[in-house]
């Protein structure tokens, strides 16, 4: 180590597990090797909580879930309950959902509307900005021992939003959200920044718990396109996917900065598959809101799946919801909330461009709910995979053998790709997975991974 040469000493952190395994051995991007332990080991999950989830930006909500002053939702940030509320000044804030008196959970509904936050236990009452307004029987306190200004709600350390996506962090030092997203913003804009009004949530998120590690669904949503023809073989047999197993291989895998990744995949050579198949009346919005480079890319593609590191994923796809309906585009965002080493709570949102017509909104919804989410004819099988992978990887014998992530790992980037980041030609490959695990390893092994060299 050459830390002595740095102007400011960097804190050291232990990089070995209790059985002396070096954390650096868990992931090898070069050898395309991933240890099975990363998906099941409680000790690794504890390290993730400490070094990743409590240090990085995590998705909390979409601004459209809080349309009015006093609207709130309750969520979790790195395993701790928070309430996200829009104040009378229109500003969205987030607080630990816990009274300063006994720690009682304050807001106990999933969503609602508040004028103040009153604790059910002894009645301590807070404002929407987190100030302690009143306590029960204040005259019975020695005023010097009840300094209300020091007993406000505990704020989430950082709260910022990007085009409707609200993120929080418990780490004061985490970079500005825009810097954290880096050049991934170029791609995110294709989905959440393409129309004048941006996107909004349709309905409420579907929420369900899966006995899997959060990294399995995330790994899939880094842009794993080559699982389609085995996992979703039933859709091929039903005629919902084209029969040629290489038909979705003609896109690019993209590695943006900071472990953020995605794929972009063209549809058949038909104008209906341009601009992700969005209704034509929305195309002028894209022309107004996207740069020429973004617009040219959007035009080329019908499908895109990706992940904002560490666990916010998205899918923009154009498929049939059933055998008789025409293909319709939909945009789903996923938050893979880590509950335990082998338990993940899935938050699946359907987003829609605010200017969408009622007909398109309905078609997009029906297509989404019939194909994805817990009952979707595609996702049912994904969920089965992620649970079974997790269960089998618990085995100590299984853990002696690493997992292979090598598809396309030998290929060089396609320098002619017009978007930022590194892009590889061909949308079947494991470059994006390797980028995700590489970034994961940085966060687990470096004391200040948010500082980029």
């Amino acid at each position, binding site marked *: 180590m050459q830390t002595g040469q740095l102007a400011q000493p960097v804190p050291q952190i232990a990089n070995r597990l209790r059985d002396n395994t070096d954390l650096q051995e868990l992931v090898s991007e070069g050898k395309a090797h991933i240890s099975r332990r990363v998906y099941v080991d409680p000790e690794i999950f504890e390290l993730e909580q400490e070094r990743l989830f409590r240090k990085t930006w995590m998705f909390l909500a979409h601004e459209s879930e809080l349309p009015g002053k006093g609207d709130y939702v309750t969520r979790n940030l790195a395993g701790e309950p928070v309430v996200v509320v829009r104040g009378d000044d229109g500003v969205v804030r987030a607080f630990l959902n816990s009274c300063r008196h006994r720690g009682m959970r304050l807001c*106990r*509904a*999933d*969503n*609602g*509307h508040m004028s103040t936050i009153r604790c059910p236990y002894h009645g301590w009452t807070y404002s929407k900005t987190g100030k302690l307004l009143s306590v029960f029987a204040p005259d019975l306190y020695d005023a010097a021992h009840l300094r209300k200004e020091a007993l406000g709600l505990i704020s989430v350390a950082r709260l910022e939003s990007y085009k409707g996506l609200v993120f929080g962090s418990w780490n004061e030092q985490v970079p500005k959200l825009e810097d954290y997203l880096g050049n991934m913003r170029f791609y995110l804009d294709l989905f959440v920044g393409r129309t004048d009004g941006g996107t909004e949530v*349709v*309905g*409420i*998120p*579907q*929420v*369900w*718990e*899966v*006995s*899997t590690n959060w990294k399995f669904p995330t790994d899939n949503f880094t842009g794993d396109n080559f699982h389609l023809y*085995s*996992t*979703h*073989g*039933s*859709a*091929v*047999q*039903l005629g*919902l996917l084209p029969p040629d197993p290489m038909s979705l291989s003609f896109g690019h895998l993209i590695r943006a900065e900071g472990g953020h990744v995605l794929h972009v995949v063209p549809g058949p050579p038909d104008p209906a598959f341009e601009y992700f198949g969005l209704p034509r009346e929305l195309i002028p919005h894209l022309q107004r809101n996207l740069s020429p480079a973004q617009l040219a890319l959007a035009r080329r593609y019908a499908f895109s799946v990706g992940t904002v590191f560490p666990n916010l994923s998205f899918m923009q796809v154009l498929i049939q*919801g*059933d*055998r*008789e*309906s025409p293909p319709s585009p939909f945009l789903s965002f996923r938050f893979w909330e880590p509950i335990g080493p082998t338990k993940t*709570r899935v938050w699946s949102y*359907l987003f829609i461009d605010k200017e969408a017509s009622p007909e398109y909104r309905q078609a997009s*919804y*029906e297509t989404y*709910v*019939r194909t994805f*989410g*817990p*009952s979707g*004819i595609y*996702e*049912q*099988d994904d*969920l*089965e*995979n*992620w*649970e079974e992978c997790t269960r089998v990887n618990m085995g100590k014998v299984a853990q002696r053998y690493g997992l292979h992530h090598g598809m396309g790992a030998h290929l060089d980037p396609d320098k002619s790709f017009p978007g930022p980041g590194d892009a590889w030609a061909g949308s079947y490959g494991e470059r994006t997975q390797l980028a995700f695990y590489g970034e994961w390893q940085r966060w687990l092994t470096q004391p200040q991974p948010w500082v980029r060299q």
Partner: protein
Amino acid sequence: MNAMVSDSMSSITIGSPEYAQVLDWLYREARLLDRGDFAAWLALMTPDIDYQMPTRSSVLPNDGSGFHPEFGLFSENYSSLSTRVKRLQTDQAWAEQPRSRTRHFIANVLVDRDACGAYHSTSSVLVTRLRSNRPMDLFSTERRDVLRTHDGALKLASRKILLDHTVLDAHNISIFF
């Protein structure tokens, strides 16, 4: 969710022949599902079947029941139910291969008849699902069904599945309700 019973509804007495007919239909339907005879189950649907399972959140009493009026976990018509059944008949519907073992327990059945002669039933339905050697999944629901005579037989025209769950404790919903 609005109450379905209006002034034009007449309530069907428990134990009456009409009540028995509806109950018989519900039990036979459940038996088809639990035996995995999905093609025969599909034949019990009217061509305009509307099959919904709304999402639900936990809300304060003043905010209602928490069911979302327009967003769900199922929003199905005949074509989509038939696609789901056909999918189960492929040999790559992995979520149901091996098959889940389900049991639909139906209780608290109340029946009303509307002015057109259609039966509106509400029931408590507990669905258990076991598959492979996973722990058992439980789905606790209220079902609101509309049964209508179509082509000379009683068919399901509408079903609302109202979950007690807000966070589903099951990895997927690869079964029918």
